[in-house]
């Protein structure tokens, strides 16, 4: 197991290297000029040229690349071309809202979706099953911004129970964090509830037809134990995969939800950086996201053996 983990962590290095080269070249080949954003509309061509030189954008691409890689080797993600702020600091400011919202969304989604999926599978082809599946289809189909606006209209504008927008760190005021996070998490959870509930149902249906389930029932084991101990734990692998992937996607940035609820997360930072062609910030975020995906995939793989002892590394 330890050898496996070590090999997987080592495998991160070439992945990150490929990502780094690819992202760097892609950005340089994309039309756009950070100096133009920095200087504003009235800047003359001569002024733009001087700013480009000052930002190092007139250096040959290989020089820019080696400078960046050298910085990375020293644990430095660089400085934003636009705000003149360290990229690590910018990502540090924006990653926590994203992580906190993602965690709360996943908790909410799992808490709602897994029981829904279990019930749907258990009452297969009854109206309960159809209701759960209908909700899933709805969850997939309705755009998140529509759900967000409807929730805002109802809970914030009409009832005035919850704030419309914004983010407060839980460390600063947990109650305020919760009140501001509920609506975006509910909005985001809709699609994940649909996804996880469907996956739970499908996996469970497969397992419920197995001989050992019939045996357990024949032995008089309580239905609750059959469902949760025997069936669900054996159906957990695909459910875990979908939860892990969902979490990684949430960390990767949910731009629309962040915009609708004005959450200063990584998604908005990414979009802003791309629009401004803020190369070091884009590169830093993509590297971070790649690392996060690799790490979460590793955790998912390792968790398989916990739920299914037959899986060994």
């Amino acid at each position, binding site marked *: 197991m330890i050898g496996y983990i070590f090999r997987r962590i080592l495998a991160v290095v070439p992945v990150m290297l490929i990502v780094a080269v690819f992202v760097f070249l892609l950005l340089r080949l994309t039309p756009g000029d950070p100096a133009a954003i920095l200087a504003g509309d009235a800047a003359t061509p001569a002024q733009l040229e001087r700013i480009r030189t000052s930002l190092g954008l007139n250096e040959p691409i290989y020089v820019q690349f080696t400078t960046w890689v050298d910085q990375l080797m020293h644990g430095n993600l660089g400085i934003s071309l636009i*705000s003149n702020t360290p990229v690590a600091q910018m990502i540090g400011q924006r990653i926590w809202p994203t992580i906190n919202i993602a965690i709360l969304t996943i908790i909410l989604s799992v808490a709602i979706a897994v029981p829904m999926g279990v019930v749907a599978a258990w009452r297969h082809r009854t109206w309960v099953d159809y209701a759960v599946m209908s909700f899933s289809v709805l969850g997939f189909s309705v755009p998140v911004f529509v759900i967000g606006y409807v929730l805002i209209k109802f809970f914030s504008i009409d009832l005035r129970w919850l704030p419309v927008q914004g983010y407060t760190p839980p460390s600063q005021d947990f109650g305020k964090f919760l009140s501001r996070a509920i609506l975006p998490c509910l909005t985001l959870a809709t699609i994940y509830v649909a996804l996880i509930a469907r996956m739970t149902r499908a996996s469970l249906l497969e397992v419920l037809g197995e001989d050992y389930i019939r045996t357990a029932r024949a032995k008089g084991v309580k239905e609750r134990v059959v469902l949760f101990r025997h069936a669900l734990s054996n159906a957990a692998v695909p459910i875990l995969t979908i939860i892990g992937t969902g979490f990684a996607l949430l960390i990767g940035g949910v731009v629309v939800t962040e915009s609708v609820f004005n959450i200063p997360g990584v998604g908005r*930072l990414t979009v802003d950086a791309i629009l401004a062609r803020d190369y070091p910030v884009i590169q830093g975020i993509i590297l971070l996201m790649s690392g996060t995906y690799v790490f979460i995939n590793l955790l998912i793989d390792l968790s398989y053996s916990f739920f299914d002892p037959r899986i060994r590394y």
Partner: protein
Amino acid sequence: MLSETDRIQGDAPRASSRHWNRTARHVAAGLMAGVMLAGASMGTAAQAAEKTITAVMHSGLRVLDPIITTAHIVRDHGYMIYDVLVAQDHTFTPKPQMADWTISDDKTVYTFTLRDGLKFHDGSPVTAADAVASLKRWGQRDSGGQLIFDVTDSLAARDDKTIVWTLKEPYPPLLDTISKQSAVPPFIMPASVAATPPDQAITNHIGSGPFKFVESEYQPGVSVTYEKFDGYVPRDEPADWMAGGKVVNVDKVTWVTMPDAQTTINALLSGEVDYMEQVPVDLLPILQSSEDVTVEVRDPLGFQSIGRMNFLYPPFDNVKVRKAAMMALSQQDVMGTLVGNPDYYKICGSMFGCGTPLEDETGADTLINGGDIDGAKKLLAESGYDGTPVVLMQPTDVPTISAQPIVAAQALRNAGFTVDMQPMDWQTLVTRRASQAKPSEGGWNLFFTNWAVPEINSPLISPMLNGRGNDAWFGWPTDEKLEELRKEFIAAQTSEERKAVAHKIQAHAMDVVNYIPLGQFLSPQARSNKLTDMIQSPVPVFWQIKKAD
């Protein structure tokens, strides 16, 4: 509902049903507690934030150096934390702000005297040396400033309070230029900060303005907080545009960036924010129906929309073709499509904007009277236009510039032009417009943008009215007559003389189609009724404002 649940779950899982019910009750109780806690904390926050104005500005603040960039949000930031020597009132008249002045009889020596009580946010006094260093840095970045420094013999501090600016020859618009509101006003910084090269951003943000920048709460592109500077001594005169006493009546101002206008409106309606700088006109009815919110126009000048052609390549290297293109366009069509509500736009053929001292609509007859397609067709035929496609750049991600290319493209096609409209994001456009390549090889023929009227209200500061070829703004016209007229404008001694020369510039620039003014639009703002005493100003300022409990 309960019976249905019982029926669904049957006998076997009844125990789990009870368990789930308990769990559901616990979860519901937890959520309710959370919401109540949140409500309580919101109430506490509301009490603590009584004198904090939360404002949603037109853009996120990402750059903190108001000299290195012409971006409006950075200029607005500059007015929060810095002060200027001279400022303009609503008649565009320069008024003393940090300093009074005298002018020598031969009009070549300007002596500025700093007023008493000026302090930077770190407590150190503002000295003449700080002002000199700041003006010199500004003069290297600002096009108007460069013109002054072209005729500057010396600029020096005589003592701690006196700045002496000696010119080689009289430069009558000096005070107008250093008091301008946009794009780059000469903000006064500590000399050590102003020593930063003008093409590098400053890293120290200490000013002497009415608000202090709170660095610890700054998140680029997300939020920025300003605290009242208790050491600021406002002038005695009433506030009048950028001039007069900057009296601060609140403790803090926080600018929050909200990328979604609907969210901002919702937040304003729910009382979470106090002020929205730019409200999309199509969303105005939502706010106008609220009793808690006032919609108004604080900037009576607004923005001028323009079209700019590339003078280097066919077909717009031919003045007749440029004229035909202008003749095909109608400001009414452009503004009607862009803004819609006539309360928020005006037809204006003046290159210096309407409502300004130099307003003059000479040469704009067809533009302001619905266009003349037949005339355009005739002129195009006379020009020898050979069907060369007009590469028209269309930004798709900036709502205030998205309609103009579409309307213009159709008008040009109606007149007989072949139009190649190329959609792209604004960033790609600003990069591509700097290219002098042929339009068919990555260059361009025509693009559109908007200017705040104070940025174009004089031939000395309007970026387009420059005929220096490759040194001119994008489009690169070589126009010796325009340069001569600008010199004549500089030499004009009185406002009447300046207006007369401006008339000649307007007539000439429209005759050669230096650019196409496409109308002037206003930007409605919205505020909570808790905010009062907000002054009219072309720059959104936060002094004078009072906030009710």
